[in-house]
């Protein structure tokens, strides 16, 4: 089982030590997502504080499944909120990332590691990787992706689909449902 799940059970029972352990285990991921999306260490630090305080004040928001997948989505959603509120990106209508309960096995993400995912991304053709990373961490729409990379919209769609499928194959059963 994802160790975060067990810790969250204790956090829900107001166990400060469990919360500290949760922070120790996952703050790098949350801070990293914030830094990649917001491009500012100070904002990433604030985002990390916000995400973990929300975990402490409202642990019931986590309803099971993979903790690491959940906290990643919470961090990305929060970063998108920051991008919207600061109007850094004019395409502020971009929808929030969707927390999809029950979409993944409990321990799928605990079996993944950063290096393996980075390797999978590196294995993609550069044009696919660039679009996927900019889309995920940039908080921009596909139209903006097309504009920024000077690529036809249809090509953007095809490359993202092909890239995600290839990622799925490369990571194999580690991201299986």
């Amino acid at each position, binding site marked *: 089982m994802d160790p975060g799940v067990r810790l969250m059970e204790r956090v829900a029972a107001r166990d400060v030590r469990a919360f500290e352990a949760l922070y120790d285990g996952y703050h790098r991921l949350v801070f990293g997502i914030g830094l990649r999306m917001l491009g500012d260490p100070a904002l990433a630090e604030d985002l990390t504080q916000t995400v973990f305080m929300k975990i*402490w004040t409202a642990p019931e928001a986590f309803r099971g499944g993979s903790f690491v997948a959940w906290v990643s989505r919470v961090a990305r959603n929060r970063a998108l909120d920051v991008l919207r509120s600061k109007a850094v990106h004019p395409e502020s209508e971009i929808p929030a990332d969707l927390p999809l309960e029950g979409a993944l096995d409990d321990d799928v993400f605990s079996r993944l590691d950063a290096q393996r995912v980075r390797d999978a991304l590196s294995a993609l053709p550069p044009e696919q990787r660039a679009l996927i990373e900019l889309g995920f961490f940039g908080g921009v729409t596909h139209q903006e992706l097309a504009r920024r990379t000077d690529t036809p919209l249809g090509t953007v*769609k095809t490359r993202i689909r092909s890239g*995600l499928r290839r990622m799925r194959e490369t990571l194999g059963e580690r991201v299986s449902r």
Partner: protein
Amino acid sequence: MNEPANREEMMESVALYALGVLPREEAALIAAFIANDLEARREYLDLRAAADAIAHSADEPVDSATSSRMKERLMARVRAAASGQTAARSRVQAAYPAWIWGTGLATAAAVVFSVVTVAQDVNLRGNLAAAQRRIQVLAAQNSQIERVAAQDRRTLTDLLAPDAKRYEVAAGTVVVRRDRIYFAFSKLPPPPKGHVYQAWTAPKGSTTVAPSVTFSPNADGVAVVALPVDATRVGAVAVSVEPEGGSKAPTTTPTFVKPLT
């Protein structure tokens, strides 16, 4: 919006949706498509798993100074919150010692002095009040944005949840999850001019319908509607075309009547 011309294009948009790069209006169209199409749902779950994994690539060492500072700041807030809860409970049971009253009075006197001093500067007070009003407005706007975003997330999560019950109806699907009911239409024709669609609900064990929300599809025939009812008490839902503003009872033959079994 660029209307997808065919199914393959819709399937490509499923990948964009999984990556989270579709604008809100197109996202609603694809969410309705996914909710109504088993293959699209499978594709979405597969690609969503890959998209979720991308977050891992951001997991990199944080320099120790930053890491320690963040942890210290966070744990101080958490411990304060935790001890605040304990203190609040204690206050219910114990009266304040006399010395606390003395300290409290001294503090209150200091606050009064500060307020009087500030009040003497009319300009400063005016600026402060204006700034506070502005902060209140911004806070209210921010809360509203967060509420809407949270509602959107919950709606879309419910629409796509594997454990949701789905009932096929004309031009779309009725989705029931926990105590919530949604209509997800992807090909709903526009209602006649001066008319809207209206939802109806019938309590379990009854054939009497109660009026619910009115709605119209967008130019693409898409409408995602959350019914403000407790799904656990509803036995059937229906939709009919009604005059703008809605009706108290159906005035036309329902577009569909769907028992929620």
